[in-house]
């Protein structure tokens, strides 16, 4: 099938088959391939690593991630009492503990996942809890990671799209989104999938209308809603 997911992504994956290499080839490849291909990238240079490198070298020389596996450091003298704070924070994400040092209390869970843990599958859309692109699971429930400070999540089990499934071992919802073409640009997709997986455990009704209401917190500017509903329906039917 020419339009099958495999066929489509094989085309995007292969540089040599690209009829007209253009300025955006690298960008397209990294957008489409980072989450989907099991193979390591051919080139070490991706859009993201290129931009990150620019930032580190040029503007933010001290912005290298301060993520360590080292034991927690002593809080500094001006550390607030009581409770945790800006000294050291341990976040449990996708089953792994991350010790974060010197985290600004203003850092949202979203920004911390993306900028400090480099888990960039979670997207920043509106940053005000209105679009759902930042949806992650906290203790098994979906939330807007943009409206929550990271310091408030010590001890929580956080799951991002990276923890849901991996290339070669996709979650059934990820596979259903691919099969039903539940996206166009893909920016909202990780949030859509995190919501869709969460709703499987929520007491919502059986109809398409119920799915649409349950997915109302995830906005898709491209308008892939019909295919998203089809993907969710398929997984619910098989669950």
């Amino acid at each position: 099938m020419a339009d099958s997911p495999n066929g489509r992504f094989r085309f995007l994956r292969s540089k040599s088959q690209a009829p007209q290499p253009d300025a955006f080839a690298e960008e397209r490849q990294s957008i489409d391939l980072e989450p989907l291909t099991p193979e390591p990238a051919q080139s070490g240079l991706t859009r993201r690593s290129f931009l990150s490198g620019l930032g580190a070298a040029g503007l933010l020389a001290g912005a290298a991630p301060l993520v360590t596996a080292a034991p927690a450091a002593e809080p500094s003298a001006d550390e607030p009492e009581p409770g945790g704070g800006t000294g050291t924070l341990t976040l449990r994400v996708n089953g792994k503990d991350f010790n974060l040092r010197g985290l600004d209390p203003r850092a949202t869970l979203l920004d911390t996942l993306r900028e400090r843990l480099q888990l960039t599958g979670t997207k920043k859309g509106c940053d005000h809890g209105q679009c759902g692109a930042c949806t992650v699971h906290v203790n098994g429930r979906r939330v807007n990671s943009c409206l929550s400070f990271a310091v408030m999540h010590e001890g929580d089990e956080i799951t991002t799209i990276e923890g849901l499934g991996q290339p070669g071992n996709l979650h059934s919802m990820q596979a259903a989104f691919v099969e039903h073409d539940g996206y166009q640009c893909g920016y909202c997709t990780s949030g859509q999938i995190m919501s869709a997986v969460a709703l499987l455990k929520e007491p919502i009704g059986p109809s398409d209308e119920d799915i649409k209401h349950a997915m109302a917190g995830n906005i898709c500017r491209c308008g892939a809603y019909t295919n998203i509903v089809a993907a969710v329906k398929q997984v619910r039917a098989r669950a």
Partner: protein
Amino acid sequence: MQTFRYLKAQTVDKALAAADAGRFIAGGTTLVDLMKLTVERPKALVDINALPLARIEKLPTGGLRIGALVRNSDLAWNPDVQRDYAVLSQALLSGASPQLRNMATTGGNLLQRTRCVYFREPTAGTPGAYACNKRTPGTGCAALDGHNRTHAILGVSDHCIATHPSDMCVAMAALEAVINVEGPKGKRTILFADFHKLPGDSPHIENALESGELVTYVDLPRLPEGARSVYLKLRDRASYEFALASAAVVAHVESGQIRSVRVAIGGVGTKPWRSHEAEEALTGKPANAASFRAAAEAALAGAHPRTENAFKVELAKRCLVRSLKLATA
């Protein structure tokens, strides 16, 4: 966003002791949003999520006690709430998105702040910012003659016409909920009708909480035997939108006569709007279209529409008529 100290309280006492430092934070869905807009600038946040206030319990009197930290989704899907207080479950599920309902708490929803675009103006505090008496007392109200299509028509003043945004609160107004608070002076209860304040000439004072007080529980009294309840919400789109008009009705009908009824309307008031006028117009009357319309006329008799929101007067009337029909069918 202005920086802040972060404190986490493990007990109610610790939270109260830290209250002076800044603001309590639970779900954060309103507060974090407004901090990003610099409308809220707390010096410290006291995280109360670890407090033991996340349970729903039956009261010995037959009512229900809801912990302030019970999330909106847990409250909406609680079997006792769904069976005995359908209006509350429906109101909660009509509000926000599933993600926000998983975060937002019962106590936080009571304190939810208005969606008035001038109040939420992102350059608040900078020269040229829109006037807002709620945000910066004494500056005026840009909504009075501005874009006020979504603004209130009941309980308004010359200083503020901001709509109270909560659906949950409209249901709780009709359920005659009682709010339990704890503060430096001890514990006290506040009747729902007394909790939210009309804007008057001090729209920045939105509720009856005193400095340092923490909402701990919301009690729902048992409904009259045989009462049915309904929440109906009208808005610009079918989901994930604030109400243009809504109605919460708790009605007890016998042999076609309305024995007792409680009515609250949302999306049109500067606070969750209990309508005793509608209740008086309905009590003892036959449950029919004429009674419902008379009640709707009574409920909106004191409406003060502005340049863009006059449509809400008729919309709210029709919303109330339809919800009464549903509750008494």
